[in-house]
């Protein structure tokens, strides 16, 4: 490719891609400097290299990139304006240029201060929005806490409404979401227990052994609640039951079962 020989199209292609080793690239450059034919060919190849860039999947510029760019050129333009110069846009005598330097620096600092002020305003706005969101979350959290306190408080009044005045049997209602392992259980009319005993709630899974789902003792009216006990997620239940156990609880249910109920999908089986 050196001397008077023209450069091969292969090497020109690699040169256009800037992937020739430096030694070869230098030889190509020397030849191009004096060969219009190869320069023209390189120009055509460069256009083809540019075309390859059009094949890429298009992405929008990142959020804020445009504004960052506009801020940057605005700052640059302001500095150029104050200093009265721009390399490509005007000529200023050297001594005048030197005299403008302090002013240019002052202007640049002023612009920087303005930009920082704008940025500060934007951050303040974000902070205000974040504060509002936090306050909203606090409200929601307090409300959730209130519901939890109501469900679990021993001093809350629990009344079972029935059609007649006949004495009612112990009952319980479990609301269970297997996917998240969430459970709320409320019982009524339970008998009071000796101090060394406790009621224990059980989940009877579709497959496997009963899973303990919380210990509880009823209040004076026989009411009790178990709210969100720690449970594994994703365990479908076929029934729930309550047994009487030792005060410290048990890993397996002890007969007899005080109350029990099957889930809707298994109740008819």
């Amino acid at each position, binding site marked *: 490719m050196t001397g008077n020989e023209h450069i091969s199209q292969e090497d020109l292609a690699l040169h256009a891609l800037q*992937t020739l080793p430096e030694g070869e690239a230098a030889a190509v450059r020397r030849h191009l400097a004096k060969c219009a034919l190869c320069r023209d060919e390189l120009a055509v190849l460069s256009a083809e*290299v540019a075309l390859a860039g059009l*094949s890429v*999947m*298009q992405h929008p510029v990142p959020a804020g990139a445009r504004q960052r760019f506009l801020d940057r050129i605005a700052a640059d333009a302001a500095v150029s304006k104050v200093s009265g110069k721009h*390399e490509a846009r005007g000529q200023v005598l050297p001594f005048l240029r030197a005299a403008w330097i302090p002013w240019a620096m002052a202007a640049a600092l002023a612009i920087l201060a303005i930009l920082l002020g704008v940025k500060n305003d934007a951050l303040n706005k974000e902070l205000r929005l974040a504060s509002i969101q936090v306050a909203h979350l606090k409200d929601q959290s307090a409300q959730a806490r209130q519901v939890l306190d109501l469900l679990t408080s021993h001093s809350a009044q629990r009344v079972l409404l029935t059609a007649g005045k006949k004495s009612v049997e112990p009952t319980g209602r479990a609301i269970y979401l297997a996917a998240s392992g969430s459970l709320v259980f409320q019982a009524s009319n339970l008998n009071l227990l000796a101090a060394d005993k406790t009621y224990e709630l059980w989940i009877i899974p579709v497959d496997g052994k009963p899973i303990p789902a919380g210990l509880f003792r009823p209040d004076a009216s026989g009411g009790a609640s178990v709210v969100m006990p720690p449970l594994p997620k994703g365990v479908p239940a076929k029934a729930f039951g309550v047994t009487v156990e030792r005060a410290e609880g048990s890993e397996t249910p002890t007969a007899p079962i005080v109350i029990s109920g099957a889930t809707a999908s298994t109740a008819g089986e």
Partner: protein
Amino acid sequence: MTFDSPNPVAPSERSLKSEHDPSDDLLLQRVRNGNQQAMADVFDRYGGMVYSVALRVLKDPQQAEDVMQEIFFQLWRKPDAFVQGRGSLCGWLLVVARNRAIDIVRRRKPSDSPDQVALPSKTNLASETERNLLMERVRDVLKDLPPEQQKSLEMAYFEGLSHSEIADRTGDPLGTVKTRIRLALIGLRKALVA
């Protein structure tokens, strides 16, 4: 197929009025006079393409944005770096974006200044409609290339590998690699004349 084929970014509303948008030459003339709006228009027109090429090479959004910002800022400071009449601004920006990104990947000094890239192109790439059509044609042409040509061009273009490095990777003779790259570029020429 190793090159990206689909384009998930639909033509923006600007494409509907692109025929009435100022030409690249006019915008650059305004940029030379310090017109920030003209520079913003250039950025809007080509920012996504420049960013996409840099992102494809670097695979890092932050670095890709840095490359994009630097290229457009250079154009703002030195609009004469792009020589009108020597090619399309779009093609010039794409080449510079790719070269800058490869310089970063290869951890080497910037290997060319923008004024050393000359691109003749009679295609009106200032029009978004034209750009989108050309993109489609380029992708179609690349899709039809033999896989080994696609792969060689991809390694050279997006990874900046030399022909000897490509030969080492693929186990193909050096001459074969060179020919494949050349043929792939010739194939791309079809997109311009289609």
